[in-house]
């Protein structure tokens, strides 16, 4: 679904060009969840923006569904750390926005946003403005808005890092639930080891700063016997109880070791 081939990013700085990313290679198969983890300043947000088509790489290519991501694409939805809901639109109007921009008729927009809000437990807040919602609720609305787009790729830039621990975990469950039901590919950028270990089928550990590079790719050791090939195998092992299992801790400490080596 997503292929990064030698992606480099440079931007002009006060003293000559700054290299933010260098030679990033990655393959995210359709229907899987990939995480990019790294310290602040390693360029992971820039990477997310490149995949979402908000920024072009200086060299190399970012391919989404076989095509170069040179501009925002209908099928790609992006979730931001600070929710990025429009404060002057109500919850339902925010959810309807992608459909409105895409020219969907108002009846369809309303029906779909009503369904999504119900699915995410937001029905009674449909007429609220975002300012009156908690952080967790806002990110729920942002998820509803993302899925209103019916995306095949969801790019998430530190989506849950402003939330408290419990809210973050319940949002992760919600994301997995939506992922199972709707089956979009997910590319998530995070600095949380647990988040990466819990959500991702493959974790790209980044290191360095100006430029940031991929230091390692870590995938959990999953037994083929656990249920056939492809993404569902991993989705199957992820339930809240997985957070307490040996395999989860093993995965998390492998990521931690790679981060420590790299950083």
């Amino acid at each position, binding site marked *: 679904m997503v292929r990064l081939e030698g992606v480099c990013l440079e931007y002009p700085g006060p003293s000559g060009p700054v290299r933010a990313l260098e030679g990033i290679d990655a393959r995210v198969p359709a229907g899987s969840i990939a995480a990019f983890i790294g310290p602040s300043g390693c360029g992971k947000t820039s990477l997310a923006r490149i995949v979402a088509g908000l920024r072009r790489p200086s060299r190399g290519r970012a391919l989404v569904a076989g095509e170069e991501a040179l501009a925002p694409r209908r099928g790609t939805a992006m979730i931001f750390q600070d929710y990025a809901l429009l404060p002057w639109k109500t919850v339902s109007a925010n959810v309807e926005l992608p459909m409105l921009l*895409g020219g969907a008729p108002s009846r369809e927009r309303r029906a779909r946003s009503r369904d999504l809000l119900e699915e995410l437990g937001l029905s009674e807040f449909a007429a609220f403005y975002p300012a009156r919602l908690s952080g967790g609720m806002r990110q729920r609305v942002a998820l509803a808005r993302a899925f209103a787009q019916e995306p095949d790729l969801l790019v998430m830039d530190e989506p849950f890092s402003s939330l408290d621990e419990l809210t973050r975990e319940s949002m992760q469950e919600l994301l997995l639930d939506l992922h199972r039901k709707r089956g979009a590919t997910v590319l998530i950028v995070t600095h949380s080891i647990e988040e990466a270990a819990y959500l991702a089928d493959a974790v790209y550990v980044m290191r360095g700063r100006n430029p940031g590079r991929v230091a390692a790719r870590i995938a959990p050791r999953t037994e083929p016997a656990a249920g056939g090939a492809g993404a569902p195998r991993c989705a199957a092992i992820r339930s809240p109880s997985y957070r307490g299992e040996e395999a989860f801790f093993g995965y998390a400490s492998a990521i931690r070791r790679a981060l420590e080596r790299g950083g």
Partner: protein
Amino acid sequence: MKARRGTSLLGAARTAAAFAALLAIWAIAAAVVQRPFLPPPGAAFARLASDAATLALARHLAASAGRIGLALLIAAPTAAALGLAAGRSKGLDSLVSPFVYILHPLPKIAFLPVIMLFLGLDDAAKVFLIGLIIFGQILVTCRDAARAVPEALVESVRALGATRLQLVRHVIAPATLPAFLSALRVGLGTSIAVLFMAETFASESGLGWYIVDSLTRVDYPGMYAAIVALSGLALACYLALDAIEARACRWRRTD
């Protein structure tokens, strides 16, 4: 809902009380001074009522309101559009901002004689002058507000595949609307003051002319009636803007 109506009722009551207090101060001052050039408020309002009945003042009120309205209609949309464009485009901004920087602090009223030489003594010169003031105010405020729109919001809507026009419609314009309205408020205040000056200058209509004309005819109640009418015009503009803001910027309310 109920609480909101309650607070707005309370607000209205407070405004009414302030109005009554101002009238009382006026009445006391008139009683203390005891001079013809400060008639009690009763006399001024009685004159206002009888003028209203004979439409003597209405023509001038309409002339003043028309000048402001026309200037507003021409200047506000163009200034807002240019301001938004300059705020979002570095190229345009580097072209516009130096001019704004030099021209904005200049006292526009000083150019009235020049404007009149070019546009004549009629309404055109007055409308142009008022328009100029409103234009500058709104241009500067909208430019700054458009610059300050959080980049994350622009990005998030751009990520949805929005066109430039859709970005303006859904992000830039609503984000700058509160600033636009407060610029309008400031601009209107200044332009009513300037209107008064402009109307006292080679003019035969408008409340400004009426005030000065009453002064020269030693018709003090008439003068005060016109001052009250001009103040009423300003107040009406404020109330209208308040109502627009309450409707259009509901999202800013946190109660």
